[in-house]
């Protein structure tokens, strides 16, 4: 049997180590277009709302007749984004599901006509 005495216990000595301030790493939310006109491209999402469509007024413009003029809105929601179908003709598909709206999660695939995007959550 091993006994332990006070002499065996070594306490960590107090030191004067300053706490080093750390700059948190910030990575923006990103839409990565992987298929369709103008792909491939990476689009950082910084605005509160972003319109995707074939109109020149859309912030993310996809010149394709398969998309409506204003096809989808992306808007900030609970620290991330959600996607909303703007009554488009061909719909918004999230991971193959036709949705009216959806809160986006990292790795989601969003298809509008012949354009396909992958959503990457920032931090």
């Amino acid at each position, binding site marked *: 049997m091993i006994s332990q005495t006070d002499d065996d216990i070594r306490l960590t000595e107090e030191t004067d180590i300053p706490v080093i301030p750390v700059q948190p790493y910030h990575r923006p939310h990103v839409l990565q277009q992987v298929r369709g006109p103008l792909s491939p491209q990476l689009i950082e999402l910084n605005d509160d709302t972003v319109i995707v469509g074939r109109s020149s007024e859309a912030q993310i413009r996809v010149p394709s007749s398969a998309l409506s003029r204003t096809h989808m809105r992306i808007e900030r929601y609970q620290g991330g984004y959600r996607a909303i179908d703007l009554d488009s003709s061909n719909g918004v598909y999230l*991971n193959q599901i036709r949705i009216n709206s959806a809160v986006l999660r990292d790795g989601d695939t969003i298809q509008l006509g012949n354009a396909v995007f992958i959503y990457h959550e920032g931090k």
Partner: protein
Amino acid sequence: MAFLVRFWGTRGSIPTPGRTTNRYGGNTSCVEVCIDEALFICDGGTGLRELGIDLMKRGSQSIVAHLLFSHMHWDHIQGFPFFVPAYIPSNTFYIYGTSPGDRRFHNLLSGQMRSDYFPVDFSELNADIRAVDLGNADRVIDGVRVRCMEQCHPGTSYAYSFEKGGRKVVYATDNEIDMTLPDAKAVQADLAAPRKIPDDLVAFVRDADLLIVDGQYTDEQYFPKHVGWGHPRATTAVDLAVQAGARQLAIYHHDPMQSDIQIDMKIAACRSRVQAFGSSLFVFAAREGIELRIDQ
């Protein structure tokens, strides 16, 4: 006509927050069905809390909603005490029993707010909360035909269907369909073979545009360990949807032990089964935060 379905909680049994369940969500059962001006809430699991927050943001001066519960197990009622609109005097909520004069669900909901369980008593909720019933399991509410059907679950549970304008959504959770199969032994002997679903359930689901159904277990999980626990194989839900001619199938009430990746695998098995049947049914995993438009 606007016919929308929103998923607020898709997990079964117990909330499962965490990184591995982030995509499909960790809140327990709660689905919102909006048909024109009519608002139906199916189950009050922890997802009901977020629905309540969202309802408050929509800016309505008075919220009127019809609450339909599959049953009263914890994962279907725990969100109710945290449902903020229930505390607002101008709002009205109808809590439905499933037969004439049935007040069980209203009474059990209020019972879970006794001081032993929760600091705020049901009587302190300021909204007008009324116990009503579905009559003989078939009633028109705000222009929507609502029907219910008893299911196979410990203590029983109920499925609901919502129909208007030729569109139909069925909410059928906590139903161990496998226990009701007339040829259960043959099913276990050959899991790939079609499973004959009871006629009454097929008729209830018939031609649904969307079937939201309990698909808690994979084939491997279900037998023999979880037989009798009140939940089916997801693949049996596929057979129900195919035999009833449903258009879309949302596998719901995910097992708390299943990660997002495991749910993906469960859905892949369901899709293989659909393909083997030569069906056009679309199967997906119910997921928090998605809204589907049924009238398209």
